[in-house]
């Protein structure tokens, strides 16, 4: 169920993130956990934000919601939601956007529900905050409907239960119910299935696909699992050390990955002949404060050459709505790169 390709001129994107930068204070200096990140999401579309641990995915999500806590702070960029810059809104207006315009499902499912309140009262609270219900009876009825919408069995009974009485999968459904209670246009789901078993993960992804279709929801899906990406996303943005290094349609990313990091991630998925060596990427993900100059991936990159360690590559346009921050894509360097070691032909074992 893919979003229909929309005509770019007909409707502006639902969300436009432009050069978003978010920093954490590290000793004397600010370190950028999110570094000039730009992307857009259209109505009803799913954008997957993928990357390894520490690449800045959650900080991006928190920045969009304006929930970054000190010592972190947004230091630059614009976040346009329906054309309005969220970073310029007074906090009071931002509060109405949270929940009713954009909802976030947090990465830690255990901490996101309050253990001392019933499932129903937590859904009701969200509805009341946004003035969506007239009475408590009304709120309870809506809560039951929402639990039914996220396929919680026996919603009339579950509505009065506490979070600890629910399995991990049901708890995640309740969180989704809270998130969609006020009909947001955009749902940000930060690793919504990582803590779940494979069978439950499949059910939750199916639920997200259904909700998207029913409510015309746009989805920013944060994950490190490329299998989940392949099943759920329309477009993909790959993040590394705070930057988006490649962005394309899901088909392009899997068929014609251009950035060596994306290629490495795809190649390290177990597959191929059983027992054969897996293709690993050498080295490890840099931590904040030790992010290398130039292209942050250069020290691990089998194709690095002169310009890589000195200056950050710009996002080269490499296809239809396909960009990659890699000097290999610069036509000016093409003659110098005709030797072995071009991507696509993995020179390494």
């Amino acid at each position, binding site marked *: 169920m893919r979003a229909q390709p929309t005509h770019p001129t007909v409707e502006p994107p639902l969300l436009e993130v432009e050069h978003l930068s978010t920093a954490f204070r590290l000793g004397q200096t600010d370190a950028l956990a999110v570094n000039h990140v730009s992307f857009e999401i259209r109505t009803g579309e799913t954008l997957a934000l993928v990357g390894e641990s520490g690449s800045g995915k959650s900080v991006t999500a928190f920045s969009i919601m304006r929930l970054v806590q000190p010592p972190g702070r947004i230091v630059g960029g614009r976040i346009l939601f329906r054309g309005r810059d969220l970073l310029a809104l007074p906090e009071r207006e931002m509060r109405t956007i949270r929940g009713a315009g954009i909802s976030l499902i947090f990465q830690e499912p255990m901490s996101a529900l309050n253990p001392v309140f019933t499932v129903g009262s937590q859904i009701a609270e969200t509805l009341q905050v946004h003035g969506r219900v007239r009475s408590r009876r009304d709120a309870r009825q809506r809560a039951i409907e929402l639990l039914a919408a996220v396929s919680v069995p026996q919603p009339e009974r579950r509505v009065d239960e506490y979070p600890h009485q629910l399995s991990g999968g049901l708890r995640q459904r309740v969180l989704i119910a809270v998130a969609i209670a006020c009909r947001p246009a955009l749902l940000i789901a930060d690793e919504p299935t990582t803590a779940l078993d494979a*069978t439950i993960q499949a059910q939750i992804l199916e639920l997200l696909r259904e909700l998207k279709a029913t409510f015309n929801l746009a989805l920013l899906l944060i994950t490190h699992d490329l299998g989940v990406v392949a099943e759920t996303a329309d477009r993909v943005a790959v993040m590394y050390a705070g930057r988006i290094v490649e962005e394309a349609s*899901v088909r392009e990313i*899997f068929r014609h990955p251009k950035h060596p990091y994306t290629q490495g991630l795809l190649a*390290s998925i177990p597959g191929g002949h059983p*027992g054969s060596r897996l293709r690993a990427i050498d080295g490890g993900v840099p931590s904040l404060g030790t992010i290398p100059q130039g292209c942050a991936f250069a020290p691990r990159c089998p194709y690095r050459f002169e310009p890589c360690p000195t200056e950050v590559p710009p996002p080269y346009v490499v296809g239809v709505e396909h960009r990659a921050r890699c000097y290999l894509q610069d036509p000016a360097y093409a003659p110098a790169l005709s030797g072995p070691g071009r991507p696509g032909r993995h020179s390494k074992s």
Partner: protein
Amino acid sequence: MPLLEVRHLVKHFARSSGLFRASSVVRAVDDVSFTIEEGETFGLVGESGSGKTTTGRCILRLVEPTAGEVVFRGEDVLKFRRGRLRRARRDMQIVFQDPYSSLNPRMRVAAIVEEPLIIHRIGSRANRRARVDELFRLVGLEPSHLNRFPHEFSGGQRQRIGLARALALNPSLVVADEPVSALDVSVQAQVINLLMDLQEKLKLTYLFIAHDLRLVRHICDRVAVMYLGRIIELATASDLFAAPQHPYTRALLSAIPIPDPEVRRQRMLLDPATVNRDRPLREVAPGHWAAI
């Protein structure tokens, strides 16, 4: 003779369900039997709470089983007294899931890797130092980093340190409990390659506990699927993935996301009410057992 034979293993935990109520029993492992041949990689998969970790820990007697036999090289480990058990443990080691919490943060990594040698009073100080150096190289770490503390290493490197420690005593069986689950995808592949290399070099036997079925398919010779404390299917990896027999296995395999946007898998759902836990395993094809 198989290297390891687990027979009718049972482990019950008492769980007190609140004030004034009788405590209930969790049947974490409930009559589990399997064998592992020398040099084999035997996978244990199943949903969270199905009893995989408990099975692994019972084999090493890190938790005491309620009943059953764990026969290692022909002898029942569960009958061993302390001294004999200590010697047996040299031959059976475990690598834990979490490379962050499984290493003592206040010890230098050289001491962490050396510790098992000291506990088992092996070699002189100089011998041990040389062995630690050798182990560090074996797992692909830089011996010049031996004086560092665990937090100075990345997750993948810490998992290598855990592996070096587990290999210090030259074990023949390594229980690897989700050894790469906490690692980044790109680093997982490094550690998996290392596990495969070491197996070849040192003739290791692995009990490999995992929930990443793609990984299990890649590295395991045979696989057992656990469900609510029981093994409900056991077969070679290729048979299991080609022709799963039990409805739970089918649901599990059909849930693996395919990393290809143009391929859709037909999902199979499992109604837990339809699973009869008491149905015994039977051989449905040579070497392929299923509780159906």
